[in-house]
């Protein structure tokens, strides 16, 4: 583009210099000056026309050709609405499936916690039992552990903690009891995360002292909207929770739902209130109760591995100071995400498996579309022959066919995106009512980019073979409309595609049946104790 512009700008100067040189030559041949110039100009030709012709050379660049291809492709799609619809539907189902799955993957694994400042600098601290293995070898911190790490570390600007278990409390509202879920958090929870209150203030460290815990709560935005009708004067009012009066000091922003995936607390209260909420005296000094998930914000100059090393040192110090505990445990540090560190790998593995399966389904859809387009391609040999005779190179033909297939797949991608947008909440509705999981499934830019990439890749995947096949044109024989018998070679490729599809479908169906059976068996296992509580 820039080259073309530069060359055309310099064209005037180039032509002028050319004529000057010819004039010079004429002068050297002995012509008088006026005639020398005149002869040079005549020999050059019509300058205006030459400039126009040169500009014309640059007119059909790849952008113009692409525009042509797009217009033509759209026309072709509209001319065959039936087959276009069939292809788009088949692909949309496949793409929509993958988009739905990716929405979950995004919500669980990729998306950082909302409203949090610089989530990449947050690290989780866990305690690890080296004699055990797997996820159960990791346990949260005790309160004394947390206090020690918080006060003695150099790597973090601050360490917050929150209770990994939701607390069911009874909210006494006008004489009626309602169960709500709350989360206990340390005094520096909101300030360290950079979350500012929507109304009022958030909990501050002075309200979370072990010696004098203050009964204050911060309400979740949704709770405030639903149960208090967005009362603007909510700050200062009191709620009776589990028999204790709590003062409302603020409302959290709408998008903030805590740091744990799937759990949206109704309110946040200081950790040090735990002994009152749970009636568990001594929880704050208990070295054996592991209940706190601790997250530290790394200082600008600190690194994750440095923090890891330092936490190990601190854990050793704790064990040296309290030999009576006979602990022999280690500290472990993970990057902080919505899924707690030790469990991430299980979720990743499971979702990777599911995505692979759904990817296979999409591959089957693509194979379907590819064989369909291959069948159609034989009907277009005449068109390809004409284009070739008119001067289109093979690359141009291939490009045009790829534009057509990409148009199809982009349409399908759009439809798949809409499908995914509807399906994901439907899947969430399938969860058993006994599990209080709330998962927000935003269709954000990651899902969009994923769908676009998948659509384009599909367009390439099923479009390439028909494009290559139909662009291989023998101009003379095709224009003469020779009836080519359906070659054995052609149907071999389609036969292969068909076989592959049937095999993959069988495997997937068997796998799906096994999964359903396992699920049914699992839900009817007698655990040996009553679970209705």
């Amino acid at each position: 583009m820039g080259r073309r512009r530069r060359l055309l700008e310099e064209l005037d100067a180039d032509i002028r210099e050319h004529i000057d040189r010819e004039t010079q030559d004429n002068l050297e041949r002995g012509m008088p000056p006026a005639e020398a110039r005149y002869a040079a100009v005549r020999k050059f030709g019509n300058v205006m026309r030459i400039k126009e012709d040169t500009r014309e050379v640059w007119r059909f660049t790849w952008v113009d050709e692409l525009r042509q291809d797009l217009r033509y492709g759209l026309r072709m799609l509209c001319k065959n609405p039936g087959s276009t619809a069939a292809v788009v539907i088949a692909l949309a189902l496949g793409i929509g499936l993958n988009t739905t799955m990716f929405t979950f993957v995004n919500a669980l694994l990729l998306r950082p916690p909302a409203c949090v400042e610089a989530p990449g600098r947050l690290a989780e601290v866990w305690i690890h039992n080296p004699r055990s293995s797997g996820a159960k070898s990791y346990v949260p911190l005790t309160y004394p552990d947390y206090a020690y790490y918080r006060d003695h570390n150099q790597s973090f600007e601050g360490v917050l903690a929150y209770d990994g278990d939701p607390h069911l409390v009874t909210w006494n509202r006008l004489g009626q009891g309602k169960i709500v879920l709350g989360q206990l958090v340390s005094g520096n929870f909101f300030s360290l995360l950079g979350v500012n209150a929507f109304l009022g203030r958030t909990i501050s460290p002075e309200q979370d002292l072990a010696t004098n815990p203050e009964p204050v709560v911060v309400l979740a935005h949704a709770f405030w909207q639903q149960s208090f009708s967005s009362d603007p004067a909510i700050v200062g009012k009191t709620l009776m929770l589990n028999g204790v009066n709590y003062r409302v000091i603020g409302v959290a922003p709408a998008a903030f739902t805590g740091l744990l995936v799937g759990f949206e607390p109704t309110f946040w209260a200081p950790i040090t209130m735990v002994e009152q909420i749970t009636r568990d005296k001594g929880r704050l000094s208990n070295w054996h109760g592991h209940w706190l998930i601790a997250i530290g914000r790394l200082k600008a100059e600190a690194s994750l591995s440095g923090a890891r090393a330092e936490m190990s040192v601190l854990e050793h110090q704790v064990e040296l100071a309290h030999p009576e505990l006979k602990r022999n445990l280690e500290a472990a540090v993970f990057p902080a995400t919505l899924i707690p560190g030790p469990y991430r790998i299980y979720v990743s593995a499971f979702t990777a498996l599911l995505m692979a399966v759904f990817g296979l389904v999409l591959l089957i859809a693509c194979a379907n579309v590819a064989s369909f387009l291959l069948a159609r391609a034989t009907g277009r040999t005449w068109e390809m022959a004409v284009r070739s005779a008119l001067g289109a190179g093979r690359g141009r033909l291939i490009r045009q066919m790829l534009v057509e297939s990409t148009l199809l797949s982009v349409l399908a991608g759009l439809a798949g995106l809409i499908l995914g947008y509807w399906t994901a909440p439907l899947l969430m509705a399938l969860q058993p009512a006994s599990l209080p999981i709330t998962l927000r499934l935003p269709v954000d830019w990651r899902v969009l980019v994923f769908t676009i990439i998948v659509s384009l890749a599909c367009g390439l995947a099923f479009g390439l073979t028909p494009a290559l096949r139909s662009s291989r044109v023998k101009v003379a024989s095709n224009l003469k409309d020779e009836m080519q018998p359906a070659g054995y070679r052609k149907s071999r490729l389609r036969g292969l595609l068909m076989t592959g599809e049937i095999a993959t479908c069988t495997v997937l169906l068997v796998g799906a049946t096994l999964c359903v059976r396992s699920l049914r068996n699992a839900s009817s296992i007698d655990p040996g104790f009553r679970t209705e509580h």
Partner: protein
Amino acid sequence: MSTKEERERIELLQGTLDLLILRTLLLGPVHGHAIAKAIEFNSDEVLQVEQGSLYPALHRLIKRGWISAEEGTSENNRRAKFYKLTAKGRRQLKVEISKWDKLAGAIARILRPAD
């Protein structure tokens, strides 16, 4: 130029001019005016190319990537745009020459059928 000379001027097809330009550049970079003179001179004045028609041809060759253009100074220290063959252009020249030979051979066979 008189009208008689104009009529006798051999019309060059677009592709043939491209071929001549490519061949002229085989020995090294040349600027536009020199290309015109070279074609005239090397054809013993038979091919009187309308010099201006070189420029669309040169731009066409640049667009196809067969030649490239760069600034330089000519023999008498004046600024000129020099054109030179690219590797792709070098390969294309061979292709075009063989196409030309085939065409010339075919026409010759028609004009003078073998006895």
